[in-house]
Structure formats: structure tokens, C-alpha cells
């Protein structure tokens, strides 16, 4: 996890990108969420050693980023700093699976390395899709879409409340953390002995804040349910977006487009 200031900045940046206007931004959130889920499911359904068949799937994030005017380097930089747990686990594959499955000239490539690169490609495809989804949709719209698709209203309300107060609590946490670090002179003094009371104070203030929020909401007539304005519309454009991409994913899943194209090119050259 990044630092508290960096994390809030990343959330705000993605939120800001979601407020832009483009044909993708104007689509209903439900269509975009469904396509993202279908995409991730299709990518995950490939075999362990499948690599060339996965590469054509980069067309989806490429088109989404291009059509929505998202900054591609921004998305790539975010993915570069992601949790390396996947890579740590994937690195065991070349060590454990040494059966040669591909020869590049005289160089033999083991199944372990094929599966390692397959894992890396899957990671970039799925992680990139999640970031692109938030960048073109926005967290609030995603929550509303989830509620419209059957997610319990209590959980959707919880997501919206959490998102609303992340910025407030993060500011408080950042101030407390900075104050602690300025008094620490390096790493000394940043142990559990100073951490626990600080977090305890933050928790007490959080609890008091929640009580004030509840009284304010009750005073304004809150009865436990949010009344979201019905502005979303699932029309022809959304249906085409959903069906078009789903059919393409199904075709790319059924046929190895890389091999088809490679065979075509090599066949025409020979």
C-alpha cells in the first residue's frame, strides 16, 4: 500500500478522470462493469501455459484507454507499483517446472517460464482493466450500478459512505502520521508504542464523528435508505458495447488469434 497522501492522490486522480467526457464515459455503468467482469473471467479461463492466445486481449484496454482519453502512462505507472505477491509466487514456476515446451532456435523455453510470463500477462490485463473501469466510470457510478444489478442496498450504502469518508479520515490520519514522523528523527520512535495510542485517538475521533454524522442525517430525515436519482439508462449503445465485446472475447477465447495471424503471415511469406 502506498503512503496515505499518495493513496488519496491516486483515488482523486482516478475520480477526476472519471468526470471527463467521451463515448465510453457516457455509457451506462452497468454495461462497463459487466464487460470488465466478462473480460477478467475470459482471461482467467486460459490454461497455465497459454501465452500467445492472451496477447490479443490487450485490444480491450487499448481501445478503452484510447476512446476514453485516459492517459496510458498513468495507468501503466499505477500497475508498475502493484503488490508483487503475484510475481513472487509466479517466480517459483520456472524453478519447479523445467520441462521444455518451446524451442526458439537452439534455445529451449521451459513450461515454467511460459507459465510465469502467462501469469504476468494475465496480471497486467486484469489489473489494468480494473483501473480502466474506475477511470471511465467512477466509484459512485459503479456502486449504483452494483445496486441496480442486485447487490444489497446496505452494502452499496456502505461502499458510498466509505468512499465519502476516506478523504476525511485520510486527512486526519496524514496529519497525525506527519506529526509523529516529525517528532521521530528517522525510524526510531515509530514502533508499536507510539502507533497504538495514535491509532486509538484516531479511532475515538472516528467514533465521535460517526455519532455526529448520524445525528445530522437523522435531523435531515434519513431513514436508512439512499434515494439515488434515476439517471442511468441501458440503451442500444450499452447493448452493443456489451454484446460486441462479449462476442469478441468469446471468439478470441475459442481461436488463438496470435497463432492464426502468425500462420497467415508465415504462410504468405513462404
Amino acid at each position, binding site marked *: 500500500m502506498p503512503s496515505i497522501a499518495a493513496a488519496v492522490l491516486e483515488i482523486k486522480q482516478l475520480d477526476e478522470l472519471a468526470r471527463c467526457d467521451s463515448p465510453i464515459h457516457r455509457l451506462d455503468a452497468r454495461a462497463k462493469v459487466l464487460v470488465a467482469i466478462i473480460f477478467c473471467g475470459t482471461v482467467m479461463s486460459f490454461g497455465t501455459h497459454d501465452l500467445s492466445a492472451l496477447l490479443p486481449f490487450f485490444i480491450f484496454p487499448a481501445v478503452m484507454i484510447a476512446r476514453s482519453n485516459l492517459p496510458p502512462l498513468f495507468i501503466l505507472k499505477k500497475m508498475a507499483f502493484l503488490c508483487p505477491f503475484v510475481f513472487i509466487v509466479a517466480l517459483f514456476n520456472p524453478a519447479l517446472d523445467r520441462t521444455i515446451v518451446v524451442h526458439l532456435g537452439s534455445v529451449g523455453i521451459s513450461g515454467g517460464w511460459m507459465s510465469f510470463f502467462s501469469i504476468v500477462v494475465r496480471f497486467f490485463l486484469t489489473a489494468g482493466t480494473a483501473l480502466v473501469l474506475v477511470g471511465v466510470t467512477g*466509484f459512485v457510478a459503479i456502486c449504483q450500478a452494483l445496486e441496480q444489478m442486485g447487490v444489497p442496498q446496505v*452494502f452499496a450504502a*456502505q461502499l458510498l459512505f466509505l468512499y465519502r469518508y476516506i478523504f476525511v479520515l485520510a486527512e486526519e490520519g496524514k496529519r497525525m*502520521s506527519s506529526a509523529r514522523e516529525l517528532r521521530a528523527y528517522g525510524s526510531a520512535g515509530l514502533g508499536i508504542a507510539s502507533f497504538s495510542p495514535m491509532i486509538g485517538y484516531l479511532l475515538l475521533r472516528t467514533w465521535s464523528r460517526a455519532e455526529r454524522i448520524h445525528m445530522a442525517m437523522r435531523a435531515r430525515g434519513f431513514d436508512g435508505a439512499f434515494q439515488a436519482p434515476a439517471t442511468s439508462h441501458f440503451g442500444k449503445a450499452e447493448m452493443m458495447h456489451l454484446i460486441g465485446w462479449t462476442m469478441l472475447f468469446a471468439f478470441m477465447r475459442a481461436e488463438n488469434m496470435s497463432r492464426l495471424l502468425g500462420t497467415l503471415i508465415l504462410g504468405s511469406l513462404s
Partner: protein
Amino acid sequence: MLPHPYPDETAKGAFAVHMADALISPSVGCTMWAASACAIAICSRRVREEMDDRQIPLMGVLGAFVFSAQMINFTIPATGSSGHLGGGMILSILLGPYAAFLTIASVLVVQALFFADGGLLALGCNIFNLGIFPAFIAYPFVYRPIAGSKPTRGRSTIAALASAIIGLQMGAFGVVLETTASGVSALPFYPFAALMQPIHFGIGIVEGLVTATIVSFVYNARPDIVCGRQAQAATHGTPLKNVLLTVLAIAILTGGVVSWFASEKPDGLEWSIKRITGTREIVGNNTRLHAFLAGVQKYVAALPDYFIKKPAHPAAPQSAAARAKENAQKTGSKLGTSVAGIVGGALTLTLALFIGLVLKKRSAAPSA
């Protein structure tokens, strides 16, 4: 508590128990999503039925608190690394299991969407590992029996320590099971478990100590916050649902662990049939309906004969010449497909990037 190998607060090398989309198979991902979705639905209904609406902003704000607290690090003595609070047990203690589960799940959703921490389909696994085990197993079966309805400082510390250790051990074991069952990683079960469990035992100790000190601090200032949920749980608890959820968790664990030791020898019925007819299964009348339904079953069965991967069947004995010919054919066809795949893969990747660039230039061009 998630340790960082670097002391720098902006460390990028965090070793976490978050599953990732790249490591799970669709069957494991969908199964865990189904379990997590059911849990979300049950907890949402329970929260709506039994809590007052004061809980709703409380859950949201405490979720934001845990999210923020996870980004503030502390150094772990004698290790040179730093860690941060997980928060699952604190939420369970303050909110009770149902509200805590929803809060943990919401934090994981935000982490998955904004930081791609995990993935959209691995979210089901993460919600299960980091939500179900602390809220529905560690809290009701470890923390509450030890702490009681009016916890003292000592009992609260022991309870927090024990529940954090057990919750994290189960969460880490869940990651091991899901990764192994998916078959994407080549890590065998026992070495992976031997790697994950001891690490997360140490993490659990630190998480437990941090949780205990925070709860103790809050208890001294506002005992109603800590004791209120315990007293409410003591009077309004419904052990039956806890038991049902525990049974569900144990069933999944049993299916994931005990099945590894399941015998492949014939069961009682198969043994009897073999004694009588000489085969393990009776071949029935092969009518059109039988054949159609058998075909449907073969097509839809995700786990034929309870194997995710079909066991390798021993090849029939072949002559050396036939084997060499077959290997040469396989090598030749493999080489051909491999080269075509590599060439085509590079071309499709270039094509995807080119299409993206063209579309981007068209979007940026001024309209006539």
C-alpha cells in the same frame, strides 16, 4: 498486519495475503465469489433487520478509519521491516461479525478498484479469506469466549492475540488452498503452506499485539465502545447462524484439504458391483435419452470424477521406433505452432497498440 520488507513508508514490496486474478482459475474464483456473495447478502439482511440506522454511518466511517490506518506504518523491532494494521479483528470487536464483514468487504472493494490490489474476480477469495475467518470464526469462537461480555485488559489482550493469530493463519491457509486448487502456480501444496503459515504466524502475533493495545486504549477512554457490542451480542446472539456459517467454512476447508487424502479405492457399492459383475460400474441400456443426458453431463461437469485436472493415464506400451516417430511429429508440430504463436502474438500485440494509437489520434483531432 502486512509486513513491508523495506522500512520506507512508500515501500512497494509488500508481502500480502491478497489473492490475485492472475493466480486463480475461473472455477475457484466463481466458487469463492458465490460464497462471499451469499455472505454479503446474509450479513446485509442481518444488519438491516437487527441494527439501528446509527450503525450505517458507523460502518462507513470505521471502514474509512481502517483504510487510513492501513497506510500508516510502524517498525517491527529486530526485523528491520515495517508493518501496518490489518483491522479485521478490531472491526469485529467494535461492530460485531455481520457489520464487520460488510465493512471489511467494502475496504477490499476499494483496494481492488483503486489500487488493483487483488483483482475483480479474486475479490471473492479476498473477501472470504480476510472477512469470513476473522468475523465468523476468530471473533465468535476465539475472541468472545476468552474476553467475555465484560472484558478486562488482560483477557482482552489474550483474546485479541489469539484471535488475530488464528484468523490470519486461516486466511493465509485459504490463499494456499485457492492457489493450489487453481493450478496456475506450480508451487506444490506443502512447500507453499510451509512458507506461508510461519510467516503469517509472526504477522498474527504483531497484529494481535497491536489490536490488543488499541482496544485497551479505547477501552480506557470509552469502555461503552468496546463493551457495547459484547453485551449486545450476549443478549441477541443467534448461535445457530454462527454455527451454520462455521459449518460452511469447515465444509469448504474439508473439501479443499481432506479431499487431497481421499482414497481412490472403490467405495462399498463399486466394490460390490465389481465382485458380482467384474466391473466397477454397471453399463446400463444405451438408449438415446441415456446417451443425450450422458453427453450433457460430460459437457457441463466442471469436476468430472472430482478431479480439476484429469489424472495422467499411463500410455500404452509402444515400440522405440513408434515412440521416436511420435515424438518427432509432436516436436515438429509443436515447433510449428510455437513459432506461429510467437510471431502472431507479437503481431497482435503490435496491432492492439496501433489500433489504440489510431483511435486516440482520432479522438484528439478537432472535428470539422
